[in-house]
Structures are given as structure tokens and as C-alpha cells.
């Protein structure tokens, strides 16, 4: 793992505290992490450990109670909602557990949506998506709507959608949770290849051992805090 002057993500003493009636829930506690570009990292932990909340904080989908987060060198706390949306559009891709493709768009249209929002021209959009579809074994399925794709195929489209806009990092929340073993392995292989060949930074929130085994860095989250952080071969 190499360190560059501007990491993909840096968190500084980040806390996220939810209030439920009179009770205070510390979902994320004093997390300081640095994710370099090109990492393939898993945030592991049991359900309710705070890994999804941490992912949402990094993605600018929710704001920390204390601390600061930098994405691609940009501190998030000064940004308004529109600026956060613009930052997500430029620098962050998302992969969700339930795929979350738009059912009225074809696989190709779903995959190119972030680029449309970025204002990328038609030819470049189509070229990037077709190349990624080829890499992920989705060629020939471009015109299918999500309802006509298997879970594994839908998640591959979601991965293509996440990386096609060339973000600084991709945040994947339990991407294999709804897939069987074969589909999970295939999807992980696709993401590992994209990480290896295109240098896309992946950060997973997962409790899937297959994801943990493939990750080159494994951060264990327990009760909202970093319990361990180990680099792996």
C-alpha cells in the first residue's frame, strides 16, 4: 500500500451520536482513519456495530456529531447539501446491499446515470459503460431492465454504475448480502479486478467472511469504535 499526499478518505476523531428519546446512542466513536487511493478495505463487524453509519458518514449521506471527514482532500463539514451532492457525484460511488437500480431504466441507462449527472457526453458514456460491461461479464445485457436480471447481474450493474463515473472511492454496503456463494465470488472477483486494473478504491462494510478474506486491509469495528486495523497480503 502506498501513501500519497492526498488520501481518498481521512477521518479525524469522528463521532456520530443518535438520540432516541432520552437515550443517547454512540453509533460511531472517535474514529480516525486514512484510506489511501487504490485500497481494497473491509470494515467488518457484527450487525449494529456502526460500520454502515461510518460508511454513510464517509459518503456524506449523514453528518458527524463531532470530528471531520476529508474526501479527496475536501473537508465535508463546511459543505452545504448541494455541495455535498456535487462532491458525491464527482468523487464517490455507492454499491448497496439491495442493488437499488432504477427499475424503469435499462442496465446501460442505470450504469450511465452518474455520468449523465456529471454531464459526460453520450459517446464517452456509452464507451465507458460498454467497456465495464465487458470487464464484468455483462455484455449483451445492456438493454435489459433490472427486473429481467438475476441478483448477481443487478449487483454487477450497480458496481459498474459506481465506478463508471471514475470516483476517488467506492463505498459498498454489504454488497454480497443478497447473493449466493457463486454470485458473491464472481462479484468480488469483478471488484478486485477493477481495483487492481483501474486503481478504484473500495471500502466495504461487511460481515461476509469471503469479503474479509479478499480485502487487503481489514478494519474491525466494535461498538462504533475501531477495534483493530490490519493490513493483509
Amino acid at each position: 500500500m502506498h501513501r500519497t499526499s492526498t488520501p481518498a478518505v481521512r477521518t479525524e476523531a469522528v463521532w456520530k451520536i443518535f438520540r432516541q428519546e432520552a437515550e443517547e446512542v454512540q453509533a460511531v466513536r472517535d474514529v480516525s482513519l486514512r484510506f489511501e487511493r487504490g485500497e481494497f478495505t473491509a470494515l467488518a463487524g457484527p450487525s449494529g456495530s456502526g460500520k454502515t453509519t461510518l460508511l454513510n458518514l464517509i459518503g456524506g449521506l449523514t453528518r458527524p456529531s463531532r470530528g471531520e471527514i476529508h474526501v479527496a482532500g475536501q473537508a465535508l463539514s463546511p459543505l452545504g447539501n448541494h455541495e455535498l451532492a456535487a462532491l458525491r457525484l464527482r468523487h464517490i460511488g455507492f454499491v448497496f446491499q439491495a442493488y437499488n437500480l432504477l427499475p424503469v431504466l435499462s442496465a446501460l441507462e442505470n450504469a450511465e446515470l452518474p455520468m449523465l449527472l456529471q454531464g459526460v457526453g453520450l459517446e464517452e458514456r456509452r464507451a465507458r459503460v460498454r467497456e465495464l460491461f465487458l470487464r464484468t461479464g455483462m455484455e449483451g445485457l445492456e438493454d435489459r431492465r433490472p427486473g429481467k436480471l438475476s441478483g448477481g447481474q443487478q449487483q454487477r450493474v450497480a458496481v459498474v454504475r459506481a465506478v463508471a463515473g471514475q470516483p476517488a472511492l467506492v463505498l459498498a454496503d454489504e454488497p454480497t448480502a443478497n447473493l449466493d456463494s457463486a454470485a458473491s465470488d464472481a462479484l468480488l472477483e469483478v471488484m478486485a479486478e477493477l481495483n487492481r486494473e483501474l486503481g478504484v478504491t473500495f471500502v466495504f462494510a461487511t460481515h461476509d467472511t469471503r469479503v474479509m478474506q479478499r480485502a487487503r486491509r481489514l478494519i474491525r469495528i466494535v461498538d462504533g469504535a475501531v477495534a483493530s486495523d490490519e493490513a493483509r497480503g
Partner: protein
Amino acid sequence: MQRAPWWRIGWRNLGRNRRRTVLTAMGLAVGYCSVVFMVGWAGGITAELVENATGLVSGQIEIHDAGYRPDRSLYDTIGGRDGADFESLLATITRDSAVVAAAPRVFAGGLVSSGEATSAGILMGVAPRRETVVSRFLDPLVSGRLPEPGANEVVIGEEMARQLGVAEGGEVVVVGSAADGSMANDLYTVAGMFRTGLAEFDAATLVMPIGDLQTLLVLDPARIHEIAVATGDPATATTTAARLAGALGAEARGLDVAPWPELNPVLSEYVSLADSMYWIFIVIIFAVASFGIANTMLMATFERRREFAVLLALGATPASVVASVLGEAVAIGAVSVAVGAALILPPMAWLHAAPLNLDWLYGNVTLQGALLTPSLRIEPNIPAWTWATVGLVLTALLAALYPAVRAARVPPADTLSGV
């Protein structure tokens, strides 16, 4: 500015719950049809009232001596007691491009008798061939023919004939006050009968050639009471009247050139009221329709909260999410307009060309001297129909605004949590 396919997404979303889309679109389409039909029918009623008020007996414009109205004195003739060269006036009037025809008239009050029966009535002197171009009540006649000048012939209303018990070829005695103060009376043959549908007019009007009435009333042939003017379009009568007043030098000559809105202000006010009612139709019907759209869009957006959260997470701005929902609303509005227009325009065109007879439902109606026949007649009103179309799309947009704003405020993290 994000150039995302919001319209495409909106359009395709219509197909996700087809039954709901069809029901909503049909609701809007029926509302649209109602507005278009009511506006067209109201236009038909207004057009017929105005046409009959200004074309059946009266003209769209009437020219009198400035002192003639409202007393209608026998002595207040055009040009005063010396009369006027009304042929010259007629020539000036008919030179105006908006004028179709003009005809002179003389009026007086009188009694009409046959045997023991007598009716009080209006004696109307006309130039028969000119009159039938300006007005419609003498052409066609119910029976008989137009009176010949100098032959002591008259035509009378059908109701007057019934009250007097006289038929075509029968004789009536006409008695009136002559301009020289003497008693005017003479015997006339009934050459024909007319029926306008205006009960009072048909019961009280006797028509004879203008020269014969001038002779009876001892009026100089140059003295007439009225020039009735027919124009191509009643809507332009006021501007045409102003132009004619200038051409005739009306002020200097003591002439009153009055368009029909001035002659029949109640009818004019009714037309204005009917025009304003178009907007009331549009507002009421589309206000009702807006609740249907708002309900549909609220349900649709609630069902798709996760999709909006995904869009927002991907970096779409809230404005883009609003645009996607509004795109769907506009799509449903456009479909509704297309369906509504396809349903209503063919029968409207047919009813415009061939008004449906409704005499099984109701009889003739008279409003301020204007006849309304029992028919379902449609008149095109392109501006109102255009506004109805724009209004429907605007209704769809406005009704979708609240659901759209709600969709744009979906919290992505909470909505996508665990999915």
C-alpha cells in the same frame, strides 16, 4: 445543470402501475373533456343568442337620429324633419369592408283589425329585398310571399294572424297616427306570414313596403327612422360602428350609430358573464382534478422513496429529484390531454357542423329579445381550449409539486439503511 433523463424516467414510471395511471389519466381526461365541452356549448349558446339578437330582426348596428332612442318618436327621423338622402348614407355604409348589407326602416305604432278582432302592434316599413339580406325574419316566410310596393300588401306575424283570425289573402285594417296629426287608416291584403319564434314580435308586428308605410303616415319619402346594418362578425360591431360614425360624419349630422352591445346591454353583459364563466369552469374542474393527481403522485412517490434516496446518494440534486417527479406529472398531463382531445374533439366538430335538436327537452327561450332555439350547438373557442390544455398541464404540475418536494427531502442514509 444536470442533463439527466428526467422526462424519460417520468414517462416510463407511468407504466409501472398501469391501472393507477389509466384511472388518473381518465379522470383528468374527463375533466378536460368537460371543460372543452362546456366552453364550446356556452359559446354555442352565446353565438346563437347574439346571432338571433342581431340577425333575426335587428342589425348588428343601427343608425338613428340622435334623439330617436329611447322614445322612438315618429318625428325623430334621420336628418330631422327634412329627412336625408338615405341612399347616399346607405352607399357610404356599404362601402365599409366589414358591412354585408344595410337597409332603411320606418316604424310607427298602430292598431290592426280584422272583423271584430283588433291587435295593437308595431308597423314596420322595410325595403323587402334589402331587408332579407340584413335580417332573417322575412326569409323564409311561413306562408305567402313578400308584399309588393304600392299594392297595399302586408306580411304579419303568425301569432297576430291567429289572434286576428286572418289567413293569407285575407284583409286587415291598419289604423295609426299620421305625421301631420291626422288619423291614418287603410285596408291591406295579407300577402304572407312570418314566424321568428319571438312570441311578442310575432304577435305584434305588421310589415309593409317602406314607401307604403310612409304614405300611410304622411311621412316624406326622405324620412326614415332607422338604417339596420349587417356585419360579417357581430364581435366586430363596436369597432365597425365607430368607423361608420366617422365615415358618415355622425356627430355633425346628429346621427347615433349604435352597435348591438349598446342597443342590447343586457345581452352584452350576459356574453361577458358567459366569457368569465369559462374560467370558472376551468378552475373548478381542474381544482377537483388536482386532488386526484396529488393523491396519485403522493402514493407513487411514497412507493419510490428508496429510488429517490439512491438518486440523491449518487449525487442528484434535490432539484433534479423534483424535476423527475414533475416530469412524470407532465407526462400524465400530456397523456390526459391527448386522450381527452381524442375523445371530445370529433363529437364537438360534429355538433358544430350539425347542432343536435333538443326540442324534445325544452322549447324556444327568449332572453332580452334574443331567441334561443332548443339545440346543442358547439362553437369553437380556441383561446379557451388552449388555456384548458395549458391549465391541465399546469394543474398536473402544481398538484405534483408537494409530492415532488417531499421526494427531494427523502433522507438517503435513513431510507437506504440496511438495504
